[in-house]
């Protein structure tokens, strides 16, 4: 065990009986040179008979045994008989474990190779279509479950609803507040640089308020909630799928959608609008800070200007938007969770997909709202 490496010597002439003497360690560490050395010998010497003397071998592991078996295979291909001499009892046990036939056996299934581009594209399209189908059927299930819960409020797991309201709402308030405050500061500061030139400082208040209440408040809040809670929903449900917990629910006669998805959806429907209001307020506060410190406005005039710049209509529609976004986030989060197959990798993919799809849907629906509200206003 103290020596390292192997020693190899060959006796005998071409075409006659030859003996290979091996000594030292025949192990994984030297597998590559050992394999190359030994494989070359039968073809080079073409002996009538080949003996391999293992008397000096101190250590043989399964990689070393593999080399010997490959040597036998190689020699057999050249129809040279091979004898292993002085094999210790221990090494004999090891050699007998390895079945030379199995080394040749092809896999039961070919290796998966990259398929041609057309096939890949087709597969991709098929997967997109299936994904769309799954989303649609989930939407159906979710609506059924929600309607059922509306008719039977007692079946809703209200304790869970409260728990997720805390998770998605109260716990998320600090980050929503911070980001909105900074957003308000930035918007007010950047716009003041322009508006100052026209002496229109006061309109900083309008700009911040309208931008925030109509567009950025709901959208920023929704994106933060998608990142914080949508992903968490997907990971939670996905892990439950992997651990057979969803199957356990099914066998106990629960509807997983009603049991797992409905409380999350209801909770986010309540908290996202509230978070949106907070986001609006903090952004306005940010604007106020810039207005008072940088633009010589008084807090009173700034707030008056803010009040006059928005209508109840704007406020209400922004809350409706927030509710719609909440359903999108929690719905897609739960759906991606239920979609998980396999193990850890599946959970990771579904979590990523939950956030990406939620943000995409938020933007799509927001554009639809923008057009719709324009026509409602006029």
């Amino acid at each position, binding site marked *: 065990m103290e020596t390292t490496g192997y020693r190899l010597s060959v006796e005998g002439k071409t075409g006659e009986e030859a003996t290979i003497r091996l000594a030292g360690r025949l192990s994984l560490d030297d597998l590559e040179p050992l394999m190359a050395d030994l494989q070359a010998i039968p073809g080079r010497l073409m002996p009538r008979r080949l003996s391999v003397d293992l008397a000096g071998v101190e250590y043989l592991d399964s*990689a070393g045994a593999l080399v010997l078996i490959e040597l036998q295979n190689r020699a057999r291909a050249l129809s040279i008989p091979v004898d292993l001499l002085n094999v210790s009892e221990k090494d004999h046990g090891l050699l007998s474990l390895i079945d030379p036939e199995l080394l040749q056996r092809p896999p039961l299934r070919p290796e998966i190779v990259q398929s041609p581009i057309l096939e890949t594209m087709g597969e991709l399209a098929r997967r997109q279509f299936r994904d769309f189908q799954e989303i649609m059927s989930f939407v159906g299930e979710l609506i059924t479950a929600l309607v059922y819960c509306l008719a039977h409020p007692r079946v809703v797991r209200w304790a869970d609803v409260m728990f997720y309201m805390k998770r998605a709402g109260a716990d998320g308030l600090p980050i929503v507040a911070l980001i909105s405050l900074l957003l308000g500061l930035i918007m007010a500061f950047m716009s003041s640089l322009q508006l100052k030139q026209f002496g229109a400082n006061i309109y900083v208040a309008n700009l911040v308020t309208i931008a925030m209440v109509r567009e950025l408040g709901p959208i920023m809040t929704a994106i933060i909630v998608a990142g914080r809670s949508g992903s968490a929903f997907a990971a939670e449900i996905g892990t439950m799928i992997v651990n057979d917990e969803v199957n356990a629910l099914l066998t106990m006669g629960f509807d997983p959608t009603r049991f797992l998805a409905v409380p999350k959806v209801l909770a986010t429907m309540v908290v996202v609008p509230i978070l949106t209001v907070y986001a609006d307020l903090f952004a306005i506060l940010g604007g106020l800070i810039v207005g008072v410190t940088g633009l010589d406005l008084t807090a009173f005039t700034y707030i008056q200007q803010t009040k006059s710049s928005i209508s109840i209509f704007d406020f209400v529609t922004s809350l409706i938007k927030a509710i719609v976004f909440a359903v999108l986030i929690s719905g897609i989060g739960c759906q991606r969770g239920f979609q998980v197959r396999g*193990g850890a*990798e599946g959970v990771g993919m579904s979590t990523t997909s939950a956030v990406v799809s939620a943000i995409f849907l938020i933007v799509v629906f927001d554009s639809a709202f923008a057009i719709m509200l324009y026509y409602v206003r006029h």
Partner: protein
Amino acid sequence: MSPSDTEPVIIVENLTARYGDVTILKDVSFEVYRGERFMILGGSGCGKSTLLKHMIGLLKPYAGRVIINGIDICRADEETLQAVRKQIGVLFQADALFGSMSLSQNVALPLTEYTDLPSDLIREIVRMKLGLVDLSGFDNHMPAELSGGMRKRAGLARAMALDPMFLFFDEPWAGLDPVTAAELDILIRSINEGIGTTMVFVTQELASILTLAQRVIMLHKEAKGIIARGTPGELREKSTDSRVLNFFNRHAM
């Protein structure tokens, strides 16, 4: 390899294990000899999995030492520890195969990471290992497509990829039917006798303990340590401790 070969290769000395303020094991000492099949027994919650995690260096002991092949793994630096880890193969209870990789990729992973072998040689070694555990042909199957017993064997093939000196098994028979479990016993024995790997098991599977173990220690929850040691036959026939007798005769307390 004969059990008379009495060279201790794993030495656990006065090991005390704690989770926070809770002491799980106190002053546990024992030795494992080269080439033997050594089992750590005990009821649920007695700390046998904790002991195993200390032996493979996943947890650091509160006090005491674990010496593997002459190296104190509790105080070794990262580089030495890495070298020791290459000599250790572990078969985890939940097989711990990577679900996103095929069987051959799972087995090849340690080989590609720790050796510079060309890919055709690696493929050959992988074939051999899969053949050793009776899974030849399943190279390109995914773990999820296999039965529990096959997954266990695939996990064993991965654990053996680098020809480790030591194999650790955490409840290898859990969730296997008696026939599959007996087949695993035969496989483990042939590997132990053929390759001479030192094997340490953590288990409570009575049938396999009796057929496979050469020496055992038994842990107990209240004692927080070893309450019996010896061969399984000795413990079953000669022990005077009711806790040991109940375990071996499958009596309720």
